[in-house]
């Protein structure tokens, strides 16, 4: 019974940390996307859009490297993409934190499950999957 009580408190702490992490991640990434959006609109607002046909070669910032290169010259589109990256990595960071939480609780089964989920996401980072 004592062990159960301990579990509950550790779980509660983890929940508060995870909640804060998610909130901060979403707010931070949205601020970055907004700033990027303002810079993008101030430069391109009169241009004509063309999204009628999907053309993979047209999107300049489609890799993490390219986004950081664009970021260094304060390109609006690159800043938006950087915000999107921050957003994508918010739930991924959540998985990392959950793994630590389960490690503290010595719940090794769930440490393994968490690591597995993390591996799947790392595999998705491989360019070969794009096709």
């Amino acid at each position: 019974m004592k062990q159960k009580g301990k579990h509950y408190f550790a779980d509660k702490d983890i929940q508060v940390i995870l909640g804060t992490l998610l909130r901060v991640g979403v707010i931070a990434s949205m601020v970055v996307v907004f700033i990027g959006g303002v810079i993008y609109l101030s430069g391109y607002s009169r241009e004509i859009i063309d999204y009628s046909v999907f053309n993979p070669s047209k999107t300049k910032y489609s890799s993490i490297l390219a986004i950081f290169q664009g970021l260094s010259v304060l390109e609006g589109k690159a800043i938006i993409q950087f915000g999107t990256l921050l957003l994508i990595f918010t739930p991924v960071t959540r998985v990392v934190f959950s793994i630590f939480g389960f490690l503290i609780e010595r719940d090794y089964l769930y440490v393994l499950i968490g690591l597995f989920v993390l591996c799947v996401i790392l595999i998705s980072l491989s360019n070969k999957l794009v096709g």
Partner: protein
Amino acid sequence: MIVDSIFVSMSVLLFTIIVLAGAFLAGLVGSLTGLGGGVIIIPLLTLVLGVDIHYAIGASIVSVIATSSGSAAAYVKEGITNIRIGMFLEIATTISAVIGAVITVYINPSYIAVIFGCILLFSAAMMVRKKVDHSDDKTTGVLANFFKLNGSYPTAGGTVKYGVHNVVGGFVMMFVAGIISGLLGIGSGALKVVAMDNIMRLPFKVSTTTSNFMMGVTAAASAIVYLHRGQIDPGIAMPVTLGVLTGATVGSKLLVKTNTDKLKVIFAVVVTFLALQMIYNGLAGKL
């Protein structure tokens, strides 16, 4: 999509404003009805604005991460979310979301539109259907005990315990939900509810919050594939994400003091119409 609409030659500014407004409405209604923003923004972008469905999917998945992480942040702190169930089912949803995102370019866009329409019809039906709580406190499932999935959650009348049933069935259904999510760029909440409410027999509050908790990771797995493929265009993703998230935030504030039953019926009609449009355009090869 080849369109003959007035939107063919639109400036970046006008496009951004229209998408921002549309995404706001999508997020607002999506959060009030529980349908999610993605299922509304994709028909808007493709049917109304003539955007290629691959771009629409990429933008939508980003908005799914934003809204699900935003609401999960609030739920997690309340202690209703079952983090173990979430993590366990994420094994299924992340693998299948990556598979869905990988195969989506090999499928004819017309078929994607038809599949999307069908999922939309299903979601509309799920929205108006009367929900029945199947949960109980029988914690005898072997797998549920092995994976420590049974749990409890706080209510006004004290802590309520619940048991988890048919873990294998739920896992398989989640795999299907993940494929659909990766394929179409939506959260596929309707399918996740089938897995959690009907198959695993979780209490409503637990299933809704846990499904939300998982959605972010699931969407992130496929979003990375989309990003590398160039499907996430900053010019579309920016107004979609900002609009949907703002709309969903306003919606969740209104939700506390509004009765949404009538809204759901009206909205089911709208969604059915959109679904038929998507299916028709898909079959006619217009998307």
